[in-house]
């Protein structure tokens, strides 16, 4: 019995440290996800073990993760790096690459497409009127244009574009998704678009060439750490120039409208492009396998956090049991942590523990402290005072009294606290995916990103079942560990 916790700890440590792999990150949209999968599967084809940190919550988070070495690469866009990350919009091409090299990073040659703003017009109009360039819009004031509200408002949006090209039209503001349909139906002649938007591949739309270079370039390329093995960098460089905008639009469409798994889409691209290595990791795992793997990660996250929580909270409570003031302070602090929203706590921990398991476990650990410590303390302090006096009178030391009398009698309360912490942890651990720690939140967040109900359920359902299973497991544990008259709900 006494060896059990140590063995468990060792097991969990080995388990968590088992794969010292390369980690590919992606941001929270379908294209980033697909590109990351393509890179990951290519590396797997080269024999690397690859972990995925999909759905990182934004460019800065991905950048920080790469900087800290939590991930080894992610798909980036030149314009985003220059503007949003480095705050130096003038940087492009070789200058941008030099600046990144200073940071220990390498922007591989472009994948072959830009994901930037563009103006799309109806294909029929383009063919009939020979419309192919933005500058040609200047002579067509009668054209009915409709733009997304964001594009109309942005400093580098419509107003600047109209000035740059001398455009006379008076555009309307409308929902982006509706604008495509309106153009396709002939109710509108043109609208703003992202060049790789999957929707473009199904509607008859033509992107006008930015012939006077108004829109900044958002060239897609893999951003890697310079310490990534040279062989891996060489393998990834083979992707350069292999993905044109039309191909990317098609892949995006398969994911966002067709509901296909990004891993499947990535695999089929690699096969078409002749980049897939025979049989090596190109075939994505089945849904069941993925759910099982995620469930494993989920249990690992909650298990480690709970173990750490118990190892701190229970001895902590034992130490504090005789010091009411300190105990109150500890509970107050633990209660304060409890009030921090989970996402905020995760964000606070990233600078300390990095992206991934560490931060997720850290947050879950902090959340488990209060229920375990509070229950243990109240269990210790509500032991019948007559029993404590008898223990003193018989000649038990403080320590013996605590360990031989108070703790066993507090066991039901302790166990109830651990149960609460475990069930809450299983639920909260779904947020771990936001920091790339995997778990059952991964399919949920991916599902939300891709608007895929099946994926959401593939995460949410097992998470709910897991919570119930944990509850039942603890009830079993209570029956096994506690004598009948000390169990909750029993009177002695």
């Amino acid at each position, binding site marked *: 019995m006494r060896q059990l916790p140590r063995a468990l700890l060792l097991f969990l440590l080995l388990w968590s440290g088992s794969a010292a792999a390369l980690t590919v990150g992606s941001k929270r949209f379908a294209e980033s996800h697909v590109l990351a999968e393509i890179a990951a599967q290519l590396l797997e084809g080269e024999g690397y073990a690859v972990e995925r940190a999909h759905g990182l919550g934004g460019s800065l988070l991905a950048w920080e993760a790469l900087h800290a070495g939590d991930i080894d690469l992610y798909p980036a866009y030149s314009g985003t790096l220059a503007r949003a990350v480095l705050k130096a919009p003038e940087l492009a091409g070789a200058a941008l690459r030099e600046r990144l090299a200073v940071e220990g990073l390498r922007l591989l040659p472009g994948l072959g497409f830009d994901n930037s703003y563009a103006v799309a017009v109806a294909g029929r109009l383009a063919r009939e009127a020979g419309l192919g360039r933005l500058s040609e819009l200047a002579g067509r004031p009668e054209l009915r244009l409709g733009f997304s509200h964001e594009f109309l408002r942005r400093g580098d949006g419509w107003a600047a574009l109209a000035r740059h090209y001398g455009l006379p039209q008076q555009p309307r503001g409308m929902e982006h998704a509706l604008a495509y349909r309106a153009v396709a139906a002939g109710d509108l002649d043109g609208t703003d678009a992202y060049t790789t938007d999957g929707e473009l591949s199904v509607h008859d739309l033509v992107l006008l060439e930015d012939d006077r270079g108004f829109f900044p370039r958002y060239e897609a390329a893999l951003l890697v750490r310079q310490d990534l093995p040279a062989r891996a960098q060489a393998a990834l460089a083979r992707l350069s120039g292999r993905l044109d905008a039309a191909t990317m639009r098609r892949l995006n469409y398969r994911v966002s409208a067709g509901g296909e798994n990004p891993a499947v889409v990535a695999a089929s691209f690699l096969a078409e492009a002749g980049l897939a290595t025979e049989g090596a990791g190109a075939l994505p795992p089945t849904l069941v396998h993925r759910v099982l793997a995620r469930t494993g990660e989920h249990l690992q996250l909650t298990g480690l956090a709970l173990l750490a929580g118990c190892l701190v909270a229970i001895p902590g409570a034992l130490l504090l049991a005789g010091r009411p003031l300190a105990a109150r302070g500890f509970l107050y602090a633990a209660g304060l942590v409890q009030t921090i929203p989970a996402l905020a706590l995760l964000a606070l921990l990233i600078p300390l523990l990095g992206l991934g398991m560490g931060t997720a476990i850290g947050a879950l650990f902090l959340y488990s402290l209060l229920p375990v410590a509070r229950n243990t303390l109240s269990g210790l302090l509500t032991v*019948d005072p*007559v*029993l404590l*006096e*008898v*223990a*003193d*009178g*018989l*000649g*038990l*030391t403080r320590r*013996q009294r605590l360990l*031989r*009398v108070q703790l*066993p*009698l507090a*066991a039901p309360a302790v166990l109830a606290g651990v149960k609460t912490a475990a069930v809450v942890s299983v639920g909260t651990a779904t947020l771990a995916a936001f920091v790339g720690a995997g778990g059952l939140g991964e399919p949920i967040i991916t599902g939300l990103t891709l608007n895929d109900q099946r994926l959401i359920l593939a995460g949410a359902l097992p998470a709910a079942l897991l919570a119930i299973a944990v509850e039942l497991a603890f009830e079993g544990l209570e029956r096994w560990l506690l*004598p009948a*008259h*000390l169990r909750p709900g029993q009177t*002695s």
Partner: protein
Amino acid sequence: MAGARDIVLAGVRKGWGPRPVLEDLELAFERGRITAVVGRSGCGKSTLLRLCNGLLRPDAGTVTVFGEPLPAPVPVTLRRRIGYAVQQAALFPHLSARDNITLLGRLEGWSAAALEARVDTLRALVDLPADALGRLPHELSGGQQQRVGLCRALFLHPGILLLDEPFAAVDPLTRRDIHQRLLALHAHEPVTTVLVTHDMAEALRLADVVVVLGGAGGPQRHERDALRARQGAAEAEELLLELMGGAAP
């Protein structure tokens, strides 16, 4: 007053409010004898007992145990030479009867054989059935719980045994039986015993000396044999009332 005195209280005062429960108490308990402390509720009987093993400290005066002033805090080694049993037995509910009895022996590092031998001796003396040893306290009858409590208090061969109304909650027949067992125990191991009770009949049956607390003019000490002679026709309760009130008709 012959013989060594294991516990001596001199000038002891103890109280919580403006009126002390005990004041200027002069009292001694003799080695190897059973002394019953009787008196009405609230007269300070239980307080007196807790002063003897240092669970309470006197506000004034000294408590001397085994010839030495009781140190503060009382070391565990000294506590283990003073057996303690209380009302309702107060057994540890998570431990079997055997584990309750042997707890101190195990803490002292006794061998399994020594533990078993001591359990057997005590069990036989208090007439506790062998199959009761494996049971948890709530599975035992009230009388059995008291017997386990006595065994637990006596396990380490203490020099002093403090009993705080230990038989208050058992039925009269069982009580009479346990009384006999206690006397058998005492004959076997003549430990200095202080028994706090409000039951004069119990005091007269068990004690060599009866101390009456709470009467006017401080505690009165009576040899049992002298009291028995006085008892004569009087009921035990009447005798107690007479002693406490100090106003004999």
